[in-house]
């Protein structure tokens, strides 16, 4: 197979085995159940960060077998796109392992990370696709972009254009998508980082909407990225594949967005870990991505900071790190909102796992994206600080710390502290955080310091390591 596989993918989408989607789902469920048993994948809620290399390798092998047996489903043609073992192995081996994100002085190099490795995490921030109002969008983006420990900027989903609800597939979607692209460029300029990598425009739902944001003079540039989505589980369609065609030819970074559902078609933690790894393989084979967002989330509550979500991040991260050259990034979705202590505990647990299990960092999707305007730069700064402080620690040590963090919030996952949105805890003129927001940040940092994480000097040491790498 050559690098531009789209003609092959379309050919196989048109000629692959026909299967009703409901049958694909049912077969996938049963196959995953079988693989969990066959590969003896077990979930221990007291060991959320396993130090078991063989387990990680078995999860990877199970995922490859899932891909071999099921292929990927094209909803547009109701056919399965199948690949041989050799094709899978070849494509995975050739997946990008080192990326230049952004341009000029603001560019960062993001590399494949090893388990318990010393390569510092890159920090992707921003609203991570969560709902943001037209009114505060620019300020929120600037708040994230100006944080020194943030390397790349995410984007929010703004639901209105000049006050009108945006309808996908209409001119409003195009107008709003272009508005947001221009806004993002302006926000990074105001932050003093005009070359910063912007990872996506979250608002557009259609291919036309996404590609309308590519305006190198004032919107998205080749050094930026756009998300191409998978549909749960292991599915795609021609709208998504068409984005790949365009982005490839424009030289933009293609970013893999997967949302394996914990409790969904993959079942519990074990099956969802296998599906998560299989989703990464789809991202390589079908989308030729630069990097992946490991966006698994609970079907029940939409978070990934509960025991199952944390375990999946740990195990899938290790499986990918040990067996592929891929660049994968966690995608933290805590239940709590801004202005609360709970959010920092949830982020701490997720960030530590990413750091020792071969991932980079992406966050924070506060309130699981349910509440409006729940993003600022502070929680992203905190995520980076924790990740850097966790460098060089073992999985066993981090497991103990994660369990301690989990105790602080586990009984609040169903009814979390929702806190306050951005305009109520950030000065809208100066973009300084209120004391009400800094207090829980400082408190949790102090407690983590007492627990043994170097929250004061850790990030400095990490940035020196980055210089040396």
């Amino acid at each position, binding site marked *: 197979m050559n690098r531009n596989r789209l003609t092959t993918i379309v050919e196989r989408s048109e000629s692959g085995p026909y299967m009703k*989607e*409901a049958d694909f*789902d*049912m077969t996938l*469920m*049963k196959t*995953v*159940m079988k693989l969990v048993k066959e590969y003896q994948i077990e979930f221990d809620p007291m060991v959320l960060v396993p130090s078991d290399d063989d387990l990680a390798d078995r999860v990877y092998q199970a995922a490859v077998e899932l891909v071999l047996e099921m292929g990927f489903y094209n909803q547009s043609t109701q056919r399965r796109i199948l690949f041989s073992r050799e094709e899978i192995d070849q494509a995975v081996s050739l997946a990008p392992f080192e990326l230049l994100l952004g341009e000029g002085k603001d560019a960062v190099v993001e590399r494949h990370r090893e388990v318990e490795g010393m390569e510092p995490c890159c920090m992707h921030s921003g609203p991570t696709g969560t*709902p943001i109002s037209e009114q505060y969008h620019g300020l929120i983006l600037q708040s994230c972009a100006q944080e020194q420990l943030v390397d790349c900027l995410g984007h929010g*989903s703004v*639901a209105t254009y000049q006050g009108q*609800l*945006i*309808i*996908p*597939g209409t001119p409003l979607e195009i107008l709003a998508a272009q508005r947001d692209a221009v806004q993002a460029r302006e926000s990074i300029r105001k932050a003093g980082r005009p070359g910063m990598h912007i990872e996506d425009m979250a*608002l557009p*739902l259609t291919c036309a909407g996404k590609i309308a944001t590519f305006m190198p003079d004032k919107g998205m540039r080749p050094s930026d990225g756009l998300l191409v989505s998978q*549909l*749960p589980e292991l599915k795609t*369609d021609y709208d998504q594949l068409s984005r790949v065609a365009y982005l490839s030819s424009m030289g933009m970074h293609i970013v893999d967005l997967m949302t394996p*559902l914990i*409790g*969904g*078609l993959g*079942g*519990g933690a074990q*099956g969802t870990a296998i599906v998560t790894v299989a989703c990464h393989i789809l991202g390589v084979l079908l989308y030729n991505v630069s990097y992946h967002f490991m966006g698994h989330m609970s*079907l*029940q509550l*939409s978070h990934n900071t509960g025991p199952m979500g944390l375990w999946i991040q740990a195990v899938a991260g290790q499986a990918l790190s040990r067996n592929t050259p891929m660049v994968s990034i966690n995608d933290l979705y805590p239940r709590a909102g801004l202005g609360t202590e709970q959010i920092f505990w949830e982020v701490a647990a997720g960030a530590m796992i990413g750091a020792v299990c071969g991932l980079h960092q992406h966050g924070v999707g506060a309130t699981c994206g349910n509440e409006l305007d729940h993003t600022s730069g502070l929680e992203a700064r905190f995520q980076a600080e924790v990740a850097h402080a966790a460098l060089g620690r073992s999985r066993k040590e981090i497991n103990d710390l994660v369990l301690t963090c989990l105790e602080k919030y586990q009984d609040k996952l169903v009814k979390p502290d929702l806190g306050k949105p951005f305009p109520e805890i950030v000065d809208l003129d100066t973009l300084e955080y209120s004391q009400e927001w800094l207090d829980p940040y400082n408190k949790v940092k102090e407690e983590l310091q007492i627990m043994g994480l170097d929250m004061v000097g850790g990030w400095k040491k990490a940035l020196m390591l980055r210089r040396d790498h």
Partner: protein
Amino acid sequence: MTEKLLTKLGDAIKDGDEESADEITLQVLDKGVDPLELIQKLVVPTLSEIGRRFQDFEIFLPELMMAGAAAERVSGHVEAAALKAGTPSTTLGKVVIGQAEGDMHDIGRNIVTTMLTAHGFNVVDLGRDVTASTFLETAKKEGADIVAISALMTTTLPAQRRTLSIFSETGERENFKIIVGGGACSPEWSDEVEADGFSPDAAGAVELCKKLAS
């Protein structure tokens, strides 16, 4: 003997064993068990318990879907038996369900469909990205009792409003109960678009449909 068979049938549904559910249902009906009672006294309570365990996340979607598939096999035989005997249909009503236009999500709607079917509703699933006119025409053609429109994203809420409007503008609004659901919905939104109800989850959707269909 019949009691033992009923217990085995209950277990087959819980285990998602379609083949066993199929076989045992035929045996049970052969023994003269009333089809309606089989649904009301065995299938519905079994699936309600499975639904509760799913809501509490004690089990997950595969177990729910497989139990639903097994229960559907039972319902199929029961419907056939009822038809043959000329007894009234066991269905609680007909529901046309679909994802609002522009919305490409499935899983939540699939769960609701499974639960509604399991509880005795006849469900016509229109799938994803359903236009307002398709909801209308299908509801009329199928003689639906309830139309259920799902929207997972804020950006697809306008399509729910558009669907309700088209029912009103064509004078069909009073002929159907229309409910809304999905992650982007809320009771406030349901009131704003003048829907007949809203449910935040699948179990609630079943209860709402039962109430509206009675």
